[in-house]
């Protein structure tokens, strides 16, 4: 379970040097609160620059919040970052591959970091490789992989330790239809097993099809939350896309 309470974060506010002028800070998160439950897929929707990635980065401790807290399975990410991160599987916004390692070696590396060892590790790697249908890629060096292939490797390394909570930052960008379906099915199965999945996206159909709950973020604030259906009703539209535009467009009134 992932809980976010009153998270605040701004960039570039502090006066740093003697000769630097004080700049007006960019407020990325403005008292954002939401909860992603176990056994549910929660989607974060929001326009570009709404603070989705900042929120997720704060969640895995890469950024320090100015205020508020992020709690994963009851563990505060600021107080105990390592313990919190061991319960997370992360598919980050910017990701790269170790280009001199093979896909298998890279997944192996992340599995070892998460404490898997011996035959259990081997088994886990084989499972995730089969699940993501990337057997042919496994023993090739990752240099020159296509965008979709790189995505798969990153997903595999995030999922290899079967994390209780799984955070994805726009996981389907650059994936073809087949790979997107593989991912969706995989996420759905993950959900069935009672894992908590939180992902940000731009693709409305995907969010509508996959998510149990949707959180709409705008200007670092929570604009609305609910099931896709509830959001449509709230905005008085039939399509989620229309509802989204309407909710983002009107700053006041609809905020839950």
């Amino acid at each position, binding site marked *: 379970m992932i809980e976010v309470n009153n998270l605040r974060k701004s*960039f570039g506010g502090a006066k*740093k040097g003697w000769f630097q002028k004080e700049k007006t800070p960019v407020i990325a998160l403005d008292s954002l609160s939401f909860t992603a439950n176990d056994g549910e897929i929660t989607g974060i929707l929001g326009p570009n620059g709404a603070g989705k990635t900042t929120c997720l980065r704060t969640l*895995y*401790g*890469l*950024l*320090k919040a100015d205020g508020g807290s992020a709690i994963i399975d009851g563990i505060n990410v600021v107080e105990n970052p*390592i*313990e*919190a*991160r*061991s319960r*997370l599987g*992360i598919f*980050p916004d*910017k*990701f*790269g*591959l*170790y*280009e*001199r*390692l093979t896909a298998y*070696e890279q997944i192996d*590396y*992340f599995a*070892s*970091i*998460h*404490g898997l*060892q011996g035959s259990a590790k081997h088994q886990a790697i084989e499972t995730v490789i089969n699940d993501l249908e990337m057997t042919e890629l496994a023993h090739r060096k990752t240099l020159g992989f296509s965008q979709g292939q790189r995505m798969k490797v*990153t997903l595999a390394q995030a999922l290899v330790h079967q994390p209780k909570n799984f955070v994805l930052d726009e996981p389907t960008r650059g994936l073809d239809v087949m790979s997107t379906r593989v991912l969706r099915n995989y996420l759905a199965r993950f959900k069935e097993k009672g894992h908590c999945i939180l992902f940000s996206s731009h693709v409305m159909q995907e969010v509508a099809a996959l998510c149990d709950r949707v959180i709409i973020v705008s200007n670092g604030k929570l604009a609305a939350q609910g099931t896709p259906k509830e959001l449509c009703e709230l905005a008085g539209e039939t399509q989620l896309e229309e509802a989204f535009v309407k909710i983002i467009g009107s700053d006041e009134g609809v905020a839950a």
Partner: protein
Amino acid sequence: MMISSLSQFKALLSKELKEAFRDKRAMMLAMTMAVMAPVMIFAMSKVMIKEAVETPAIYLKISGVEYAPKLIKALNNDNILLFDDVPNNKKTIWDERNLTLTIPQSFNQDMLDGKPIDIYLSADYSEKANLSPIRRIKSTINIYARSIGYKRLLIRGIDVRLLQVVNIIEQDTSLPNSNAMIISMMLGLYLLMAAFMSGLPVAIDASAGERERNVLEMLLCQPVSTVNIVMAKLCCASLIACIGVLLTLSLTSFSVSFIDLTKIGASFSLDFFTIVALILLLIPICFFASALQLFVAFQSKNFKEAQSMVSMIIMLPAMVPVIMMFVDDKPKWLNWLPISGQSLIMENLFKGLPVSWWLMIFTGLVTVSMTILLVFLMAKKLRSETVVLALS
């Protein structure tokens, strides 16, 4: 569930090593130093020996050759020849050096009269290439003049020894090894350079390179302490630096064995004790160098900046020993600091002077503790968002 940090460290290190050894360009670069050093030392020693042993021909422009044929013959005997005889391929060189000797018309008459004769040697004394020819010309003329003077005294029945009032007998207390000082100084410099250069490409790649490729960020989201990450990177880079140093050391002692140093009355040998002491001295330096490089590379904004900043660090091992050569009264603390301490101990080692083990251990400890300090500073930096995302 707490994950054992030792097994994490093992995974981190094995990945760093795999990446480093698969990076062929970085490895090539790392090992060039090891190959270059022995070649340079070999070539320079050869040149030095040649200069010290041989007396190459000097071509002197002499006006008034006809007035002093015997002096000219004496010069010729010492391979100091007339400019008219210069071979074509060397003509421009000697023309530029423009060494001229003017013999006065009255040379012969003054000689007969026993008067002092003024002959003029003109040359650019600040030109380094002229120094050795000038020295030789002067000494040849002096010897020639003195032998005539002695004969004059002998004819008059005076003991020549009356002229030698005080005779200095010089006793050189330096050990035979010390004569190979230049070679050993160079070897010391090269070993320090190798410690700094060999790990350099790997250190930059593992820090600024990984950040630029967006893999560092992903690693920092994992449940692993930043100290562990830094330690793994440091161990990998220093290991490669150590390999570079060992290779330099072994190739150099191999190549020096081909040079006949006995010609200039010197001997140079690396015995077992010296090699062990050198390795013990240099291993802490390898770690210190890599830590310094990682630290600077993590601080910089991008790969390019890291490269230029880290190259400045290479100046340290090159500059420090050179500066120390010019400091005659060395303050005590220079013995303890990294790089300067090691290079002083190395100097003593090569001179064959006794080396204090305590000083060696102490300098090593200072170096290691500075390395540890750097590791913790880096680990702290990696927890701050400005460094991780290269903000600010």
